[in-house]
């Protein structure tokens, strides 16, 4: 193992920038990911997530700035990076008419794993991801949850110390989604570093650290708990009423309301200061609309992001 791999940060990004002609897709972002961390990368489509991941995987050269993954510079040594990481792209990377086992053997070939090593790797990951019983089944006939497991197994055969998972659970039923996350958490506990993107904010709760990218810049970072209790994050009020939409229409343009939205069957309104909560209460009671309750709550990650994206 090289000296570089012994550092505790698996990823170090410094002022990383990527332009496409005049468009700045990723704008001088900097961050570190520690070994064994599950690092959640969130943000709207087109915010720069995939561009960043492609640079970190060594498939897209940065315009400026630098990034080191597992001790290798992605600009200078992209091939070293590619050999040592696992990457599970968005959408399907499987062939419908190849079986589970054929997929795993194919990917072994891509990573130069042959002979007894191949058998060991294939057996190990089939066992671990519960694919053994389906070894001869064609990928095209697997359920969504098992397709994702197979795609993950294909990225793990060469024992990467760092994996990139780009929306790994889209289109999967909730039970399979939980099982998939159980596997990810297990890998991280064994020391694999995980960078994951998702639009499911309940999944973001699994992450040790989150970063929100917007317009090519990272506009917020922290643990899920830190983000919810960030100073300056304001106060979130939950209103339960039969007439959510009428209340929302009436309050969202009030000057002290920072963001407001329907949250499940309730209404979440974020105000700038604690004192504004009383003003909000007064404003709602002036509407003469009956409400079941109005009280401060811990904001959800969705509230936090709605607030950040509106007031960057």
């Amino acid at each position: 193992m090289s000296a570089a791999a012994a550092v505790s940060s698996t990823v170090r990004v410094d002022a990383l920038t990527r332009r496409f002609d005049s468009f700045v897709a990723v704008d001088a972002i900097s961050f570190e990911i520690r070994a064994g961390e599950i690092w959640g990368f969130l943000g709207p489509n087109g915010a720069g997530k995939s561009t960043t991941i492609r640079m970190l995987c060594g498939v897209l050269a940065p315009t400026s700035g630098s990034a080191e993954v597992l001790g290798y510079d992605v600009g200078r040594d992209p091939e070293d990076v590619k050999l040592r990481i696992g990457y599970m792209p968005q959408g399907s990377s499987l062939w419908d008419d190849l079986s589970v086992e054929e997929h795993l053997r194919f990917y072994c070939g891509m990573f130069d794993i042959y002979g007894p090593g191949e058998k060991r790797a294939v057996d190990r990951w089939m066992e671990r991801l519960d694919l053994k019983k389906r070894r001869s089944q064609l990928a095209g006939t697997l359920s969504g949850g098992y397709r994702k497991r197979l795609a993950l197994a294909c990225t793990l055969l060469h024992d990467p110390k760092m994996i990139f998972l780009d929306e790994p659970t889209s289109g999967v039923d909730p039970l399979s989604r939980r099982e998939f996350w159980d596997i990810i958490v297990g890998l991280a506990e064994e020391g694999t570093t995980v960078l994951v993107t998702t639009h499911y904010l309940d999944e973001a709760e699994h992450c040790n650290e989150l970063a929100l990218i917007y317009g090519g810049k990272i506009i917020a970072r922290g643990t899920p708990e830190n983000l919810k209790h960030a100073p300056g994050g304001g106060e979130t009020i939950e209103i339960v009423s039969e007439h959510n939409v009428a209340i929302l229409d009436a309050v969202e343009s009030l000057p002290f309301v920072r963001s407001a939205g329907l949250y499940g069957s309730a209404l979440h309104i974020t105000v700038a200061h604690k004192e504004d909560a009383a003003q909000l209460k007064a404003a709602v009671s002036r509407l003469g609309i009956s409400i079941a309750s109005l009280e401060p709550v811990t904001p959800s990650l969705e509230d936090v992001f709605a607030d950040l994206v509106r007031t960057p």
Partner: protein
Amino acid sequence: MPAAIAASAVTRRFGEIVAIERLSLEVEGGEIFAIVGPDGAGKTTLMRLICGALALDEGTLLVDGIDVRRQAWRVQAAIGYMPQRFSLYPDLSVMENLRFYGNIFGVPRLEFAKRAQELLNDFALAPFTRRLADELSGGMKQKLALACTLIHSPTTILLDEPTAGVDPVSRREFWRILYRISAGGTTIFVSTPYMDEAERAHRVAFITHGAILSLGSPADLKAHLAGEVVEITTQQRPKARRALRDEPSVRSIEIFGEALHALVPSAANAIPAIEARLRDAGVTDAVLRVIPPSLEDTFVARLSS
């Protein structure tokens, strides 16, 4: 008044595969009805059956009391269907796309002008009428597609995963618009892979393998959850999680921020067992409490029982 959509024992096969199996449901006028389910559950097939794009093999399907089998053309005038990949013409402007769909549905000229203006205002697209569809952002394209779906003032709209792959903040805004449409009396039948969105609907049906697993208002579904959720707060999360993985009284265990959520059939029975497991594993700081379940918890409970 007839139901907006009334499906009774609807079946559709593709060769050997039964995509929809004896499915029955009723959607009331003005309601936001969400169908949730994994890929391949039959959500898209169901929508295509309702709008008459696919023929059903068995059962009956009425839209506003009109039989889809007998009078598909009348049904098609009454509904708007937004498929997963709605076709906007990239080299037509916002207004030209609207006019195209207006013409397809035979919307009279004067009515079109009024309706188009209304929709453009409601969806905040008015400043962009001359912009080519190709040059719109993802969120704006989606709003334009929705406007095209509504141009002939349908009484019911069918939206097939309109927010798949869309970030949470944009999804929140999209639902805001759905509520506004619904407040105007339009019935909305929408499929989604996101459980937090289903929680915003008036009623929800969860479908797997072409059949309904459960159906009701989010509050009803949560009230009838066959189980409870225990929150476990501890500094030793990984250790606690490992200790509880094989505990038979725990159906699923999930990390949620700094806590674990354990889905259990009965909290009264599970809490002592959980406490014993944690103690044996050397987790001494755990604080347990029963918390309200999410809609997703109810489906996981159904799927795993």
